[in-house]
């Protein structure tokens, strides 16, 4: 696990009030206890932590440009946005 992955998982886990070690990349947000409002807050925390802007629409998360279907998808999405910023 690299640093970026650990930080993203840490943010999601903190929002879900669970231990980061229990989070798997294949988990979906609901699976770790994040509802849509929890996800909105987690995305905000990610934006603040990485200095990026995440294209995420809470109305229809599936239709957003940013894939939140699994923890792994969120990690890779953040990785692309951080790379694009660099």
């Amino acid at each position: 696990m690299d640093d970026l992955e650990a930080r993203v998982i840490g943010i999601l886990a903190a929002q879900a009030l669970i231990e980061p070690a229990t989070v798997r990349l294949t988990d979906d947000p609901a699976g770790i206890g994040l509802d849509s409002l929890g996800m909105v807050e987690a995305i905000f925390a990610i934006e603040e932590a990485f200095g990026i802007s995440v294209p995420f629409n809470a109305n229809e998360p599936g239709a957003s440009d940013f894939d939140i279907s699994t923890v792994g998808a969120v990690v890779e999405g953040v990785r692309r946005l951080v790379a694009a910023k660099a």
Partner: protein
Amino acid sequence: MSRRVVLTGAGTVNALAHDVPGTLAALVQGRSGIGPLDFRDVDRLTIRIGAQVRGWPGLPGMTPREAALWDPFTRYALAAADEAVAMSGLEGADLAQAGVILGTAAGGIATWEDNYRAVFAEGKDRVPPLVVPRLMHNAAPAHVSIRHGLRGLAFSVSSACASASHALGLAFREVREGRVPMMLAGGSEAMLLFGGVKAWEGLRVLSPDACRPFDVQRNGMVMGEGAAVFVLEDADHAAARGAAPLAEIAGFGMTADAGDIVAPSAEGAAAAMRAALADAGMAAAEVGYVNAHGTGTLANDRAEAAALRQVLGDGVAVSSTKGAHGHAIGATGALELLACIAALRDGTIPPTAGCLTPDPDCGLDIVTGAARRAEVAAALSNSFAFGGLNAVLALRAA
């Protein structure tokens, strides 16, 4: 004896028009008041569209003292109240018996913003003396009371997106129960400014391009602003002075979901609709039109459609006018009452501006494209707020 309550005056300022005739015409045409936002620091927003009041000359004869005292949300309320009182023909001793209840979600938010900017961003160490009476939520009903000599009850109601409907419902009860012969009621909101939109942006429910209630392509709500104020009057009192009613308010229902702070509940919405019907002694089959809350978010559309099917079946004509006047938050229920008047008085159901392809999953008769001609004897107006607070007005043709 239970009294009947009729609407004998209406007034408005909103993105479609600065009066009732212009707004009714725009609603029936399915025109949209949504466009690029224009205010300070708009370039720092991600969302840059809204239904903004444009080209409004303001209140005629406003003095410098009044300008210092009236936040934009108060100015909209005063203009709407002036039009409503003029239309009603009420004056003098009659008005002295009346009260006023107005809804707002953000109150004088422009005043908060301007003065926080002055002290925090610009480093100023003093603010103008009238900041407090300018920003308070009850400034709008207080100034309406002062301007028209209303000496009955006067206060503001704040329940986010249901504020105006709660205000109208409470005023309706005051008149029906005989405590006052007439009331002014409605809502006003002036939240289209940098901080107001920035806060909503954070919730990620705003659409970047269009408001499309009940459309398969919907992607969020679009904020609006303005005010609508009505004169509610004991029907016998109105008849005795020969006033022509616009419509009758027949019932009011309100419920709380006691569930999620933001996610809507079909059960809570359905319970409020049933309560309004029961309060009005109205059968579901009588309802010919529903002005839906219809925000253009997936969550609202699904919950509201399920509630509508549960309570009224799938045959009733439904439209949302938020694609026209935007989601005017604490004023929106009052603006939407104008759409109900178009249906009940004029037999013209305003279409759902912005809805091009109705979502078949909603399973409703959504009025789209052009206005629909129909004899509508009874209508519901739905408002569902964050907090799980639901308010529904039941109306009849006068």
